[in-house]
């Protein structure tokens, strides 16, 4: 049976860090960015081809989008590194929900805390033209304990 040398372990961790730095230095990757509603829908459709989109909002930073579907369904698209992940919300998937002014004129932050071990936080920067309150109301239907953990504020709240 083999024993593990702590020095080998340390050198291995340092090697991983070195590869990480070399990867950053070499580049060749582009942080994921949503340029349009069509982008968000196309990415969602790869994972959920049956989703029938009715309304889409892409965040001001292009890092996330929220999509409303037929029958009250809600889907999320979110950047991670140079890729995206998608989620179709089910009952109880939202643990907390808030809508707050962002500091920029009329902009709002829609924040969700999800019952998702690998993706607990979702944030969307809403433009002044977006009806944040309506999205907030839609999302409240997915709270694990409706009426709780809801925080709503701001000019469109």
């Amino acid at each position: 049976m083999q024993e593990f040398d702590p020095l080998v372990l340390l050198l291995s961790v340092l090697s991983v860090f070195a590869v990480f730095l070399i990867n950053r230095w070499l580049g060749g990757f582009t942080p994921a960015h949503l340029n349009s509603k069509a982008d968000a829908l196309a990415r969602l459709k790869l994972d959920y081809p049956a989703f029938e989109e009715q309304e889409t909002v892409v965040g001001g930073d292009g890092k996330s989008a929220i999509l409303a579907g037929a029958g009250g369904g809600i889907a999320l698209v979110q950047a991670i590194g140079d890729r995206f992940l998608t989620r179709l919300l089910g009952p109880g998937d939202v643990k907390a929900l808030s809508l707050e002014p962002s500091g920029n004129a009329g902009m709002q932050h829609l924040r969700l805390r999800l019952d998702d071990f690998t993706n607990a936080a979702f944030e969307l920067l809403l433009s002044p033209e977006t009806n944040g309150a309506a999205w907030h109301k839609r999302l409240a239907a997915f709270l694990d304990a409706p009426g709780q953990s809801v925080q709503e504020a701001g000019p469109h709240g």
Partner: protein
Amino acid sequence: MDNFFRDPVQLATPFFFLLILLEMAWIRRGGRGEYEPGDTATSMMMGLGNLVTTIAGAFVAVAAYLWVWQFRPFDIGFAWWAWVLCFVAEDFFYYVFHRAAHRVRWFWASHVVHHSSQHYNLSTALRQTWTNTLSLHFIFRMPLFLVGFEPAMIIFCAGANLVYQFWIHTESVGKMGNLFEGVMNTPSHHRVHHATNPRYLDANYAGVFIVWDRMFASFVEETAEDPPRYGIIHNLGTFNPLRVAFHEWIAMAGDIRRARGLRHKLLFFLAPPGWTPPDWTYGSRQTTDMIKAEWRAQTSKARQRALAGEPVK
């Protein structure tokens, strides 16, 4: 007992690091593929953790192996033909394990880690589970001990099998000729295995020899019309190795806790990933069989034929 269970994977690890750097440089010079630093670091940390946890848990597997070995009817020994036979037999039992790892949630909870990157490059090969021993993966190798192959030979062949599988995790290599593609597992065959395109789900479980997939009807050819999209059905939103390692175990434990009745609790262990009881209210999920059936129902026959069209060159 020193070096009795010497694992070729540990000997090869420095070369893995070197080849990853070479592939990165190759891609920067126009080769096919992508590396993203967070994803790369996560994959490599998972590989490192796999080495540590495999060594830490080895006593469990070794105890089980040696217990079984005492009942062997033959002493096969170290003849050259025994090495060949052992390597081929070990690869067959790898196929059986790998198929179970995709079709039984208990094994998938461990194996999902390897599929959790949305990238496909040499670093993905190192993205390995930390819960091998917990998942009882080693039981699939026990028939080799029971028959009477030498333990050191089996361990070496298993390690050599994994070392072979390193280089096939790349987009930089296309098709490799009919003869080689017909017998061996190749980058093209394994890209299919890592893809989430409905047509590619649950295909190409081979380790070294693709013939097992051809024999047991799980082979799917990569086509240019259906480029692979990598990852899992429910992709991860984290680069945290701890969360990557344990996310499916935690999800499974939650499902078992919420399930009503012993039968449903057992099925959350044993049914395919994505299975839920008919009255399940904690989010709808799909098994790969359901995804494939839905895709076939929604996609015209002409489109299905087009996607299955010409093998990639």
